[in-house]
């Protein structure tokens, strides 16, 4: 069975500070891992994914994520948070027709 966990419902960070949104996975075999962002009353926007290769994946809007096989984690990071980064972030794992989403982490960037 595949699953992802986002242990934090809410993350607050000051503008300009680095941010981290955590995700751990439980997947048999090689994991396909994704990050999406959702703004209020909008669909999910794809940020980045890890399939294979470099453990550090760079994505849209300055976000990056680090795949850590030993810790089964895929944390989303950004060096300097913007107020406009405030949104709901989802980690997901799976293949084409069986994508499993975490419960989401609400990120608030405080001016």
């Amino acid at each position: 069975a595949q699953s992802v966990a986002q242990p934090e419902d809410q993350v607050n960070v000051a503008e300009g500070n680095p941010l981290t949104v955590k995700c751990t996975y439980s997947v048999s075999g090689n994991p396909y891992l994704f990050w999406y962002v959702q703004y209020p009353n909008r669909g999910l926007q794809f940020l980045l994914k890890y399939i294979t290769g470099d453990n550090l994946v760079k994505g849209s809007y300055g976000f990056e994520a680090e795949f850590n096989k030993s810790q089964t984690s895929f944390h989303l990071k950004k060096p300097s948070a913007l107020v406009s980064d405030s949104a709901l972030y989802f980690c997901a794992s799976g293949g084409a027709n069986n994508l499993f989403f975490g419960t989401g982490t609400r990120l608030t960037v405080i001016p």
Partner: protein
Amino acid sequence: SQTIHQWPATLVQPVGSPLSLECTVEGTSNPNLYWYRQAAGRGLQLLFYSVGIGQISSEVPQNLSASRPQDRQFILSSKKLLLSDSGFYLCAWLGAADTKDIGDTQYFGPGTRLTVL
């Protein structure tokens, strides 16, 4: 480039009324298509997916049904809505993040907010 549309954007329906939500994709052919429901602004639940015209896989037995009458059209329906059908409905298609990608990323539409009263 590819785009995905959903309508209506919002819908308020009485209990027991029928439902039809539409999703269309432009700029691609024969995409895999998906319907999700998001309750309470959090987790996503996959409802249906389709790999081609007339091919529907149901993930969760419930009050809803899906159809794919055309290559790039995916419809979510109900004959009689329940209060529990309220939520944010998202359509997605399977595509490639860039020209080197193998096409295994789901891209989402803007969603339809359904309120059943």
